[in-house]
């Protein structure tokens, strides 16, 4: 048996020491150049350093192409394709979020500092839209509770209110004569919902910073609630003792409530919520058809106890 001989590496292939020592800068520059070349709406997409987490549904991921081209983000237009097509002028950097209200240490936080301060987890969540479609999305972010801990909520705080940026010059849906909703888009959670470990502030998806159309640079993800609770491009978080208003409830209180928990038993007044269609499963004949919607979007084990004793039909 012949002894193993390591291959001889010619001197010409050995990386010079200065380049070796600078390899990280080189990679960074290459990433930047790549991002710059993509241009347009994708300009800001940058890789995130992501750690795994235990929150991972075992279902096929919705393709990135569909997650980033099929969006409800009325600030950019009402059509599902509008956010991807019309968000190119939006500038998600520099960006700060004010956290104020009933807190011991109010503050203003820079998005890039937050990304440095908190480990960015990958969480694969189901997303169920109130329009009866769904996706499975690998979000990257940190628990809202981590940010709330930083500002030390007062004992009197019972709710958390959220607010989206208003920039008509960068968000075409906020300008012009025809306005679908009133701005800013606002949302709210009960403090215990906000502190729940599933409640995520997402700064990315598929391992990259959030594209503009998905709510760059930071958005809320509450996987057991309908998608409209996931407020995008957040600029302010306020702790309060009053139940906050949320945009869809204000727009049509008969159809949208404060809680908006996914519930196959409680139909939207104009359509059924019993089933949903999974997005991105291919053409007419390759898609799996409708699937049953799960109570609390499949997160009942984790969150049902938050609503013990509540009438979920009245608190829709």
């Amino acid at each position, binding site marked *: 048996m012949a002894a193993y001989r390591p291959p001889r590496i010619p001197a010409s292939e050995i990386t010079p020491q200065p380049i070796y020592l600078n390899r990280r800068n080189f990679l960074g520059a290459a990433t930047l150049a790549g991002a710059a070349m993509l241009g347009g709406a994708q300009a800001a997409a940058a890789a995130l350093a992501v750690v795994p987490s235990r929150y991972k549904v075992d279902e096929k991921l919705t393709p990135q192409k569909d997650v980033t081209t099929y969006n409800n983000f009325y600030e950019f237009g009402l059509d599902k394709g509008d956010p991807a097509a019309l968000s190119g002028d939006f500038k998600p950097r520099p960006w700060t979020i004010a956290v104020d209200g009933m807190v011991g240490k109010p503050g203003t936080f820079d998005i890039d500092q937050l990304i440095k301060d908190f480990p960015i987890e990958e969480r694969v969540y189901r997303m169920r839209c109130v*329009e009866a479609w769904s996706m499975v999305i690998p979000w990257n972010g940190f628990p809202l509770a981590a940010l709330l801990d930083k500002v030390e909520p007062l004992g009197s705080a019972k709710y958390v209110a959220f607010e989206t940026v208003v920039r008509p010059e960068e968000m075409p849906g906020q300008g012009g004569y025809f306005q679908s909703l009133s701005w800013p888009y606002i949302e709210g959670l009960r403090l215990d919902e906000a502190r729940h470990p599933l409640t995520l502030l997402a700064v990315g998806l598929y391992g990259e910073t959030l594209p503009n159309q998905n709510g760059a640079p930071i958005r809320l993800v509450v996987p057991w609630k309908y998608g409209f609770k996931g407020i995008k491009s957040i600029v302010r978080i306020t702790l309060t003792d009053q139940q906050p208003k949320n945009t869809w409830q204000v727009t049509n209180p008969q159809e949208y409530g404060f809680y908006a928990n996914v519930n196959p038993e409680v139909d939207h007044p104009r359509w059924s919520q019993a089933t949903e269609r999974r997005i991105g499963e291919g053409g007419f004949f390759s898609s799996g058809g409708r699937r049953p919607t799960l109570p609390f979007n499949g997160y009942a084990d984790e969150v049902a106890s938050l609503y013990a004793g509540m009438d979920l039909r009245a608190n829709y």
Partner: protein
Amino acid sequence: MAPVLPKRWQPASVWLLYIVGLLPAAWSFYLGATDDLGADPVKSFELLLGLWTLRFLIATLAVSPFRDLAGWNLIRYRRALGLLTFYYALMHFSVYAILDQAPMFNAILADVLKRPFIMFGMAALLLLIPLAITSNMASIRRLGKNWIRLHRLIYPIAALGALHFALSTKVLTLEQYVYIGLIVVLLLYRGVRPILRARKNERKNLRAQATERIA
């Protein structure tokens, strides 16, 4: 002056309208079957068929005002436009029943009975059926005056279609305002039409009297 097609081309132009009219459905079906119709192909196809139903409905309703106000007589194409409305409505429903809801047929029944939005659309489709069945010369001859009465059903059908469209989304879009606005205007026109006609006749009579006097 209204353009006039040479007489021997007229039947061919009607057939051409059927073919061109069905192209959007055929093309989108091909795209949807080959996964080229976006992230939610079933919904996109359903919506496209619904929109074309409304487009042909609006075109059908526009034939009379067009003749009255612009002097263009497109009455030759009205049957084709009306039937295309019916075909698109039927395809729209079939996609909802077969591709969207299947195989939950009891879900469809529950939807129809519980939801005004679906009920309006379904009622419009059902009311279109007798109109489609009687869209031929034999029926026109046999039904006489009743044919005209029966085909006035297109007005409630249009109103139901507009309601169905208005209730199908979370908020009304600009596009919906345009479609619904056109339908409302075309229906209102039917209300003012007798008045317009009466005035026109009055003027004609006056002119006739004046001519008589001069003579």
